[in-house]
C-alpha cells in the first residue's frame, strides 16, 4: 500500500511534466506490447515452444494440485499431460500456470495459456460471450453443501437463517442465491476472495455450511478437516456443473486436438485399452477400434495435424479415463469419490465417447 495520494501539489513544474509524459508513454507501450498477436496457430506455437501452457488451480485436490516436490497431479493435470503426450510426444512437456478463479478467463483470452483445464463449469454465458470453446467434459460435478455434524442438519432445506461460506469468482454464489430464493429460505452468504480463506473460516465455525462443487467438498473434508468424520456432505445437489477444458475461439485445429485427446481416453476405457495392455494390443491386437487407439490401424492423427501414434502416447502416459479417474479422485485417491455420473454410458453413467474413426 503506498500512501502517495493526490494531495494538490504546488504549481506544475516542467521537470514533473516531463516525468509524467515519460510514464504515460511507458504505460502505453506496456499495454500495446501486452496485447498478443491473434493466435491462429496454437499448435505451431506449442511445437516451437516445446511445451503446452496449461492453466490450472492454485490447488484443488484431485483436479490440479502440486505436491511437496512441486509435481502437479489431478484429473485436469492429466488431461493436459495427455495432450502434451499426443502433441509433443512427452507428457512432461506441460507448463502449469496456477490461476485463481477471477484470473482464469482473462489469462486464456490474453493468450497466456493454450488450455484452461481448471475445473471450469460449462454454461451458456461462458460459451457464448467469452470467446471460448469448451471441449470434452472430463468431470460431471454438481454443487453441494458441507456441514458439521454437530449442527444436526441432514438436508439443505434445514439451513434457514444459516450463514454459508463460499469463494468469490465462481458460479457457486449465483447457484446458492437461486436455490434458496426458489425455496424461500433466508440464508446469508459470506464470500471470500481466496478458497483457503473461505474454508478456514468455515472450519473455524464462522459458517454453518460451506458450498462448492461436491468433488471439492470431498477434497476439503478429507484433507483439511481435523476429523473428516465430524463433517457431512448434504444429499442435495443444487446445480449441474459439467467441467471441461477450454480453448480460445479462432483456432479450430487446436480446438479439435483438445476435444479429441480426452475423447480418445474415454473411448479407450470403452474399448478396454489400458496403460498396461496398450503395447501388447499395438503389437498383436485384432480389434480395429483398439488398433486405431494403439496407433496400429488407420492414420487418424494426420487429420488432427498430428502423427499416427497420438492416442497411443496419450493413453500410455496417463491411462484410459477410468484409470485416470481412479488414480486422481476415485478409490485409489484420498477423495474416494464414486464413479456415479462419471461412469461410462453403458455402466449407468454419462460418459459416451465419440467414435475415434
Amino acid at each position, binding site marked *: 500500500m503506498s*500512501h502517495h495520494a493526490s*494531495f494538490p501539489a504546488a504549481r*506544475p513544474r516542467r521537470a514533473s511534466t516531463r516525468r509524467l509524459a515519460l510514464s504515460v508513454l511507458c504505460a502505453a507501450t506496456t499495454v500495446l506490447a501486452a496485447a498478443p498477436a491473434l493466435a491462429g496457430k496454437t499448435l505451431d506455437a506449442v511445437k516451437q515452444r516445446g511445451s503446452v501452457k496449461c492453466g490450472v488451480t492454485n490447488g484443488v485436490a484431485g483436479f490440479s494440485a502440486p505436491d511437496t516436490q512441486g509435481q502437479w497431479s489431478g484429473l485436469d493435470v492429466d488431461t493436459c499431460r495427455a495432450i502434451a503426450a499426443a502433441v509433443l510426444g512427452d507428457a512432461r512437456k506441460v507448463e502449469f500456470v496456477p490461476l485463481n478463479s477471477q484470473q482464469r478467463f482473462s489469462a486464456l*483470452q490474453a493468450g497466456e495459456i493454450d488450455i484452461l483445464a481448471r475445473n471450469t463449469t460449462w454454461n451458456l454465458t461462458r460459451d457464448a*460471450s467469452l470467446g471460448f470453446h469448451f471441449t470434452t467434459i472430463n468431470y460431471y460435478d454438481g454443487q453441494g453443501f458441507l456441514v458439521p455434524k454437530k449442527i444436526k442438519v441432514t438436508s439443505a432445506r434445514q439451513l434457514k437463517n444459516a*450463514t454459508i461460506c463460499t469463494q*468469490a469468482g465462481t458460479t457457486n454464489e449465483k447457484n446458492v*442465491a437461486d436455490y434458496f430464493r426458489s425455496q424461500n429460505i433466508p440464508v*446469508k452468504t459470506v464470500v471470500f476472495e481466496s478458497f483457503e480463506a473461505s474454508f478456514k473460516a468455515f472450519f473455524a465455525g464462522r459458517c454453518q455450511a460451506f458450498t462448492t462443487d461436491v468433488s471439492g467438498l470431498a477434497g476439503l473434508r478429507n484433507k483439511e478437516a481435523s476429523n473428516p468424520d465430524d463433517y457431512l456432505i448434504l444429499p442435495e445437489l443444487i446445480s449441474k456443473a459439467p467441467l471441461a477444458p477450454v480453448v480460445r*475461439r479462432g483456432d479450430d485445429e487446436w480446438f479439435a486436438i483438445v476435444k479429441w485427446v480426452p475423447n480418445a481416453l474415454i473411448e479407450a476405457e470403452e474399448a478396454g485399452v489400458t496403460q498396461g495392455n496398450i503395447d501388447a494390443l499395438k503389437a498383436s491386437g485384432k480389434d480395429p477400434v483398439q488398433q486405431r487407439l494403439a496407433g496400429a490401424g488407420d492414420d487418424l492423427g494426420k487429420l488432427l495435424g498430428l502423427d499416427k501414434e497420438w492416442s497411443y502416447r496419450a493413453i500410455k502416459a496417463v491411462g484410459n479415463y477410468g484409470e485416470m479417474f481412479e488414480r486422481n479422485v476415485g478409490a485409489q485417491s484420498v477423495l474416494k469419490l464414486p464413479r456415479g455420473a462419471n461412469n461410462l454410458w453403458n455402466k449407468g453413467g454419462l460418459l459416451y465417447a465419440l467414435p475415434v474413426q
Partner: protein
Amino acid sequence: MSMSGAPERRSAALGLALQALLVAAVLGGLFWVVQHALEVLRGRGVRSGFDFLAQSAGFEISEGWLDYDSGQPFWRAFLAGFINTVRAALPAALLAVVLGTLLGIGRLAPHALVRGLCAVYVQTVRNVPLLVQMLMLYFALTQLLPDSAEAIRLAPGVFLSKGGLSLPWPLREAGAFWPHGFEWPEQGGFNIVGGAALSPEYLAVVGALALYTAAFVAEIVRAGIASVAPGQKLAAQALGLEPGAQLRLVVLPQALRLIVPALTNQLLSLTKNSSLAVAVGYPELVSVANTSLNSTGRAFECIAIVMAVYLLLSLAISAGMNLYNARVALRGWR
C-alpha cells in the same frame, strides 16, 4: 514592468502550448488504446460493453445499508458495494483520527510509560502489513469467540459470537422521528436474528483499518505539535492556562495547519485500503466487482468501474479536506 517581461510571457505561452499538446496526446493515446482493445476483443468473439449493468445480478450481498436482493440489476449491486465501502471507511476514519490524535499526544506526554507505550504501538502497527493485521483480527474473532448458539450476552439484547455483534435496533413508524420501541436480537436456531448485526467481517475490516491508520495519524499529530514553536507553549503557561487548555487553545490550532494536509493523505489511503476487505469476506465494492466480473466475464468494464469509483471517492475526500484546510490555515499567509 520589468525588462524581461516579453520573453517570460513568450516562454509561459510556449509552456502552456506544450502542456495542451501533451494532454491532447495522452487523451488521444488513451482513446486509441481503448478502441484497439475493444476491437481485439470483438475479433475474438468476446462481448464487451456496459449493457450488463441493467441485467439482474443473481447473487446476494450478505450485509449493508442498501436494500438489495439477487433479483436486482448489477448496477444496484455495485451501488450496494460502494455503500458498503463507505460503511466501513467512514467509522474507521473517525476511529483512526480520534485514536491517532490521542496516541500522538501520548507520544509527547511527560509521563515516560505513556510515551513508551505509544511509541511501541506506533512502531509495531506501522511495520506490519495491513492485510496481515486484518486476517489476524478476523481469524482471532472467528476462532476465539463462541459459536452463535452459545453467544456471550454482554448486556440485555447485546450478543457477541462467531456470528458477530448483535444490538437492539430502534423501530420507527413510517414518517415518525421517535422510535416507538426496539427490535431485540434473539436466538434464531443457527444465528442470532433480529436487531442490528455487525458481522465479524465488518468488525475486522473497521478495526484493522482504524488501528493501522491510527499509527500513521499519531506520527502526523506528533510532528504537527512538535512544529509549534516552544515559545508558544511557554507563552500559554505565562498566561496561566491549564495544560489541557494550553494544548486545546494554543498548540493544536497552530499544529492543525501541518496536520490537515498530511491527514488527508491518510484518509485517502484508508479509503483505498478498504479494498483489502475482500480477503476477509466483507462485501465491499471490489468484492462485488469480482463476483460480477466472474459471472459476466466483463473484466475490463468491472475494473474500470472500480477505478472510476475510487478516483471519484478520493477526489471528493480531497476536496472536502481542502475546504477544511482552508478554514484552519493561517489567514493572510498565502
